């Protein structure tokens, strides 16, 4: 007890002045800070087959086409939202002669895990990390979701601390969509 107390006192004197419990010390430092990269892209021809070490979120802003994931093709149109995991080899193919406008967002796994351990809702991180999720938004949700994406795009470009946090909450809203709409992919069956 005494030695524990001593080390604790040392910690306190060094930096441990806290109002609330400091979660960053408790979570592994690898989980945070969040790394969120996103951008808007215009595709007029198929891109290369690729995979990333991050979780990728795709949103189709305009146009239609197909997305090939692990050798299986799924049609995508305006309003589709796709969640790709590190083991999904994917390729986007726009419809012939047309342009596909997409928003692409990369989130590191740590950030996703951090969002998934909140005390207020239950997510199964292992299940989400293994399946492919494709959802189609209803027409009334499209407008709202696009405004969330737009805010995410603007706040990801500014550099202050608060917009980084804002990004995290906006991202939570995007993740929330996947729990509301049915999954259109059949990745569970194979």
């Amino acid at each position, binding site marked *: 007890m005494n030695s524990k107390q001593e080390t604790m006192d040392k910690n306190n004197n060094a930096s441990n002045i806290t*109002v*609330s419990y*400091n979660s960053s010390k*408790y979570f592994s430092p690898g989980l945070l800070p969040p790394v969120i990269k996103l951008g808007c892209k215009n595709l007029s021809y198929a891109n290369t087959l690729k995979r990333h070490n991050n979780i990728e979120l795709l949103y189709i802003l305009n146009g239609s086409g197909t997305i090939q994931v692990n*050798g299986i093709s799924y049609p995508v149109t305006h309003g589709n939202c796709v969640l790709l995991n590190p083991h999904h080899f994917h390729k986007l193919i726009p419809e012939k002669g047309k342009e596909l406008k997409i928003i692409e967002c990369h989130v590191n796994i740590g950030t996703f895990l951090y969002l998934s351990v*909140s005390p207020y809702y239950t997510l199964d991180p292992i299940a989400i990390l293994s399946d492919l999720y494709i959802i189609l938004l209803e027409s009334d949700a499209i407008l709202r979701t696009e405004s969330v994406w737009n805010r995410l795009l603007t706040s990801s470009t500014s550099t202050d601390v608060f917009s980084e946090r804002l990004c995290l909450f906006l991202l939570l809203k995007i993740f929330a969509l996947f729990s509301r709409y049915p999954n259109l992919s059949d990745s569970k069956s194979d």
Partner: protein
Amino acid sequence: MDKNPWTSSASPLGLTPSALISETYKSFSLNHIQIKEALPPSLENETVFLYVSHGIGIIKVNGVDFELKPGAFIWLHSAQTYTIEPRLGRELDITFCVYDNMLISYLLFLEHTPQQVRFFIDTSPVVYLDSDKQQYIQLLFTEFEEESMHDDTCSIMNRAAIYGQIATAFFQEQEKSAAKLNNIQHNLAWDMITYITLHSFQNITIRNVADYFSVKTAQVNQELRMVSGHNFNQFLNRARINSACTCLIFSDLSASYIGAFVGYQSEVAFFRAFKALRGMTPQAYRKYMTAESKYPRRQLIQSTSISILHYVAEHYLEDICIQTASKQLYLSQSSINEELKNSLGTNFKSLLNDFRIQYARALLQTTDMPAIDIAMASGFHSVYTFSRIFKEQTGVSPKEYRDEFKARNHG
């Protein structure tokens, strides 16, 4: 709980603090209230955000006056005693949402430094929003009301996100106004309360506070009692117990560890203070918060298992095993497996193999690589192990799997 004199001060918002704990914030709700006449001073156990949409008045926080007008946005944390007084005939319309300490800690103190915390506590708790920001906040409130209609995971996630957005908007504004106005006029009690809150984790006594401010110990008590009705010991206990409540959601921490962490020298003192303030023992409180209340929280944050999962998910293609994981995470091998078994129902080996087989299946479906290359690419050491584990999981050999897949999709 109600008999206890420390928490019995009725909340001005029409609810006693205990009622707030059990009902309001658990469900993530937004509340409206109209205040017509001055309210008695009160002290919350939780963090409250207030937004004035209509009316004029004054709020007194720890003995310092702040003006209230439409667009005023106020953050009150647990150490602040406040009184709300509307100007005669101009009743105040207030929207408020309650954040518990845990949520605030989860949402906002992600990477805080002591300086940052001091800043949050020490600067003005009231900011005045311009019309753009007012619209933004109103928009968030409407969105929140719409989300409250539903009761699924999605709406709870959305509500948590909106709570975060509201708080972020406040802190952003607070930083701006602090830069503009320099600082507010503090009184002695304000500074003392800041000092006690910031140092409650340490072994502080009334002597320390008196010495720091060069006053007599009696004056410390007098100042504190004047603004909050509590003396030094009561104040310190409140601060410590509030942070202990936050710690209690982390299931990996024992109650006695938490007691020492929040600043108690003896376990008995911690338990006694906790029982006096919350009406139950720490263990019972933890159980109550996670299981027995109307809106139970997720079982408890199992952050150890999450960091193991993180390690596996990031590195499964590399040459890792339970030995490297235990070195990296500073955990023993048995505790890694125990942790995973308790919270995720799996063990390290099968977790790692699941990830690797998933990746191998993706390679089988998309490429023409031979089995040995796939085995190496997905982190296995030999093709035999790979084939065996693959067969265990999917029921077929890698080659059969690929042929089957091709026949199904291209044949």
